[in-house]
C-alpha cells in the first residue's frame, strides 16, 4: 500500500469517527437549553398582561419577531377564526401566528405528547377545557390568573359564570373560553305545525314526533325524509349525545348532584334503569334517521338538517347561525330551537329504578318534566404551554385574549361557520348583533332563549371533568356505545360493561382521589 492510499484511509477513518462523535454529542447540548430557561423567566412579572392593552390601542409591536404556534382541531370551524384573525393580531402586535390542526380525536394525545415529551412545539392549545384537570396538576399549562386579572380588555366578568368556573382548576384560571357549548334540540317549525305537533318536551315526545314525521317529504323534493338526525359514528360525538339524553333521567336534584357518578362512593351511574332508558332512546332515534347514521358524524347530521331533510336534530349552538346562511341553508326561518327535552321519570339513586316526578323527586321540574340541559364539551378554550419562553407565553395569552375580547368574539359567535357559540353574558342580552347577522327578531330571541334557559337552569349538567375523563368518555363509553348501536350488545350488557370498565379506571386512578375531583368540579359536598 503506498503512503497516499494510507493517508486517504486514515483521514477517512478519522472523518467517520468525528461524524459519530458529533452525532453522539449533539442531543446532549440540545436538551439542556429549554428546561432551565423557561422557569427562570417564569418568575418575572407576566409581561403578557400588557398585550391585551396593545390589542385595544396599539402603541407598538411588542411581539416583533415572536412566532407562536397554536394547536387545535382540524377545521374549518373553530380553526377558521384563528386563521382569519391571525394576520390582524400580527398587525397589532408583531407576533406571527401559526395555526396547526389535527383531527379532533387525536388532539388530546397530541397536546400531551408534545408537553410531556418536552418537545414543546406548540405555544398554545385550543382544546376542551375539561382536559385542564389532566394538564394543570402536572404543570403542563400556565396558570393564567395573573394575566386575566391584569387584562381589562378581556372583560372577564362578562364571561358567563359557568364558563369562568369550567375553565378554572383549584381556583385558578387555566384557559380562556372562545366558545360556549350547550346541547339543544332544533326542530322544523313548518313541518311540526303542518302535522299539528308540538316541539318535544320529553325524550318520549321526541321519539313520537320523529316517528310521526319520518318518511314525510320535508324539503319538497318528492322524496321521503327523516324524523330525526343524531349522529352515531364511533369516535365522533355519540358519547356526548347519550349524556344529553341520560342527564334528565339521572340528575334531578340540581347541578351539584351530577349525572356521571354517585357522589357517595364514585360508583358509575350507568348500570340502572335511567341510563338503560337513555340507551334505548338514543338507539331508537336511529330508526327514524338516515340509513347510514351509524357512520355519520355531527357534520353529516348538521348538513342533512340544513338541507331540510330532518324534522329534528340535536346539536350545539352552531345550527342557529348556520340556518340563516342562504348559501348553505334551506331552512331559513323554519328552524326552531329549544332547550333539551327532559323526562317525567327520574332515577331513584337508592334502588336504581325510575320513579315518577313529584315535588320531592324533581324539585326543579317544569310542568312535571325534569330537565337537565347538558353543557357538553364546555366550549373551545385556549391554554398556554407552561414550558415555552416567557415572550411566547405572553404572545400566546395575548392572542387568546384578543380572540375572546368582545370586539372579536361578538362578531364571531353570530357566524355559524366559526363554530363558536355565545359564552358572554352580553352576547345573550344584546340581540342586535344577531339581527345584524341576519336573524329575524323572533329567531334570535328563540335561539338565545334556548341557550340562556339551559345555562340558567339550576339543574344544568356539566360535562365530566376529572383526570382520565377522556378515557372514561371518549374511549370506554365510545367503544361500548358503538357496540350497542351496532347491535352487538344488549342494553343490559352495555350498561354492565360500561360500569365495569369505568370502575376499572376509577380503581386504577384511586377512588378517593377521583371522588374528590368529581365532587369539586360539580360543587357537591
Amino acid at each position, binding site marked *: 500500500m503506498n503512503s497516499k492510499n494510507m493517508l486517504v484511509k486514515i483521514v477517512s477513518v478519522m472523518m467517520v469517527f468525528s461524524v*459519530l462523535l458529533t452525532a453522539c454529542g449533539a442531543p446532549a447540548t440540545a436538551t439542556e437549553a429549554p428546561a432551565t430557561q423557561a422557569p427562570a423567566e417564569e418568575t418575572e412579572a407576566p409581561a403578557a398582561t400588557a398585550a391585551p392593552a396593545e390589542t385595544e390601542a396599539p402603541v407598538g409591536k411588542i411581539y416583533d419577531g415572536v412566532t407562536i404556534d397554536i394547536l387545535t382541531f382540524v377545521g374549518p370551524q373553530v380553526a377558521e377564526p384563528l386563521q382569519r384573525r391571525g394576520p390582524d393580531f400580527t398587525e397589532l402586535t408583531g407576533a406571527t401566528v401559526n395555526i396547526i390542526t389535527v383531527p379532533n380525536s387525536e388532539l388530546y394525545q397530541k397536546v400531551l405528547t408534545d408537553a410531556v415529551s418536552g418537545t414543546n412545539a406548540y405555544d398554545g392549545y385550543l382544546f376542551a377545557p375539561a382536559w385542564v384537570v389532566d394538564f394543570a396538576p402536572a404543570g403542563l399549562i400556565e396558570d393564567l390568573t395573573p394575566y386575566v386579572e391584569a387584562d381589562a380588555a378581556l372583560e372577564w366578568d362578562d364571561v358567563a359564570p359557568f364558563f369562568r368556573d369550567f375553565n378554572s382548576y383549584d381556583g385558578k384560571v387555566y384557559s380562556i373560553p372562545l366558545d360556549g357549548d350547550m346541547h339543544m334540540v332544533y326542530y322544523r317549525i313548518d313541518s311540526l305545525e303542518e302535522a299539528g305537533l308540538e316541539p318535544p318536551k320529553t325524550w318520549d315526545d321526541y321519539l313520537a314526533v320523529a316517528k310521526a314525521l319520518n318518511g314525510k317529504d320535508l324539503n319538497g323534493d318528492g322524496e321521503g325524509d327523516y324524523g330525526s338526525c343524531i349522529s352515531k359514528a364511533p*369516535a365522533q360525538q355519540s358519547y356526548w349525545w347519550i349524556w344529553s339524553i341520560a342527564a334528565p333521567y339521572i340528575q334531578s336534584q340540581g347541578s351539584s348532584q351530577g349525572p356521571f357518578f354517585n357522589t357517595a362512593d364514585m360508583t358509575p351511574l350507568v348500570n340502572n334503569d335511567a341510563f338503560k332508558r337513555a340507551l334505548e332512546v338514543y338507539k331508537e332515534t336511529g330508526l327514524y334517521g338516515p340509513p347510514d347514521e351509524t357512520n355519520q358524524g355531527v357534520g353529516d347530521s348538521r348538513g342533512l338538517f340544513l338541507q331540510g331533510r330532518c324534522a329534528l336534530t340535536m346539536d350545539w349552538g352552531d345550527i342557529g347561525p348556520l340556518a340563516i346562511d342562504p348559501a348553505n341553508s334551506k331552512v331559513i326561518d323554519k328552524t326552531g330551537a329549544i332547550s333539551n327535552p327532559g323526562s317525567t321519570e327520574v332515577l331513584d339513586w337508592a334502588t336504581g329504578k325510575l320513579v315518577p316526578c313529584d315535588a320531592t323527586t324533581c324539585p326543579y321540574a317544569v310542568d312535571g318534566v325534569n330537565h337537565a340541559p347538558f353543557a357538553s364539551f364546555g366550549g373551545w378554550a385556549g391554554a398556554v404551554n407552561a414550558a415555552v419562553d416567557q415572550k411566547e407565553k405572553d404572545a400566546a395569552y395575548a392572542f387568546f385574549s384578543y380572540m375572546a375580547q368582545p370586539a372579536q368574539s361578538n362578531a364571531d359567535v353570530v357566524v355559524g361557520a366559526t363554530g363558536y357559540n355565545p359564552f358572554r353574558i352580553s352576547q345573550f342580552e344584546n340581540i342586535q348583533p344577531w339581527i345584524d347577522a341576519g336573524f329575524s327578531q323572533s329567531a334570535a330571541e328563540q335561539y338565545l332563549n334556548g341557550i340562556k334557559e339551559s345555562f340558567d337552569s339550576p339543574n344544568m349538567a356539566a360535562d365530566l371533568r376529572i383526570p382520565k375523563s377522556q378515557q372514561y368518555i371518549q374511549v370506554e363509553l365510545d367503544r361500548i356505545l358503538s357496540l350497542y348501536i351496532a347491535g352487538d350488545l344488549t342494553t343490559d350488557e352495555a350498561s354492565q360493561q360500561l360500569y365495569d370498565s369505568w370502575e376499572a379506571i376509577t380503581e386504577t386512578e384511586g377512588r378517593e382521589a377521583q371522588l374528590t375531583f368529581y365532587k369539586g368540579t360539580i360543587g357537591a359536598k
Partner: protein
Amino acid sequence: MNTNPQGPTQIGLGLEPHSYKIMKTQTEEPQPFRLHSVISTFADRMAGSVFILPTVLALLFLSIFPLIASLYVSLAKFDIAPGGFKLTFVGLDNYKKLFEGSEGIHFLGKFAPSTPLTWVVFGVVVIALAIFMARYLLNVRVSISGLMGRVLLSLGLGLITWMLVYTLWNEGRLGTASTTLVYVFVGIFFQFILGLSLAMLTVQRLPGRRFFRVIFLLPMMITPVGIAYMFRMLTDTSKGPFTPIWQAMGLSDFSWVNNAWGARTAILIGDVWQWTPFMFIVLVAALESQPVEPIEAATVDGANSWQIFQHITWPAILPVSMTLILIRLIEAFKIVDLPNVMTNGGPGTATQSLTYHAFINWRALNIGGSAAVAYMLLFLVTFFAMIFVNLIRQRTVETL
C-alpha cells in the same frame, strides 16, 4: 516459519485470496519495523468495521432500541406526572387485559357457544395438525429445533383456528385479531387473483395494452387516505355519486356500514383496489421475463393455453409470486387507513384491525396497552411470515 511446505505454489489450486494473503506474508522475508506500515495495516483492518459502524449504530438506534423500549413500555403503565411523565412497571398486566373482560372481547372476539359445525371444523384442523406432527416424528431427520418449531406452529394454528371457528359464526363476533386475519387472507387472495388476471391480459398483444398498464397502476399511486375517502363516498347510498344507481336498484335505504360484514366487505374492496396494482406490476414483469422457447415448443406440440399456463408459466412465476405474497402478507397486517376513514372502526368494533386497536389505545394515552397490542401484532406477523417462508415458499420452490 513456513508452515506450508508447498508454499505459494498452491495459489490457483483452490486457495481463497485471503489464505493467499496470509501465506504470502508468511513466506516473505522479515521486514524492518516501520510505523507507517503498522498504521497502514491497522487502518486497513479497521476500515471495513469503521465504515459499517454508522449503519450498524443507525440500525440499532432506529430499529433495535425502539423494539426493546416498546417492549418495556408494553410492560408498564404511562402516567402524566409533574414536569413530564412516569412509567410504572406493571408486569404482564397489559397483555393480561387483552385476554379477559371486555378488552378480551375487543381483541379476541366474542366466543359463541359450541355447535356441531364448530366441533367438526376444529376437529378436522386438530387432526390435520396431529398428522403433520406424526409424520415429522416418524421422519429419521428429527431435530430439537425442528420439533420445537413444529410444536409452536401446531399450537399457534390450533389456537387461531379455535378463535376463528368460535367467533365467525352464530352469535360470535370477530375481535380485532380475527378481523385483521380476514383482511389479510381474503384481501391478498383477491389481490393476487386479480393482479395475475390483469397481468396475463396485458402481456397479450392487444391494442391499448400500454395505456391500460398505466391505468391499472394508478390506484397504487394514490394516498391510502385518499382511497379511503373515495370509497367512503362511493359506498354512501344517500349522498354519494352512485346514489341514483342505488336508488334505481331500490337500495336507497341500504347502508354498507350498518352491517358488520357489509362494512368489512367495503373495506376489503377498497384494499383490493388499492393493492391489486402492486401484484399486477410485479407479475407483469415476471410474465414478460419468462423464456419464450418452452412456450413455443409447447404450442408446436399442441398444448392448449391452460396446459401452457399450468406446466410452464405458473412454475416460472411461482418464486416471484411467493415473494410477492410474503411482502403483501407482512404489509397487509398493518392495515389502518381504510377502517379509520371509511367506518371509524364501526359498526361497533367490527372493522377495527389490530393496528387500529393499538391506535385507539395510543390516542387515549394508554401507551402500555397500545404497545401490548403492537407486540401481539408483531408475534402474529412473525408467526405467519415464518410459516410462509419455512413451510410454503421453501417447499414450493424446492418442488420445482
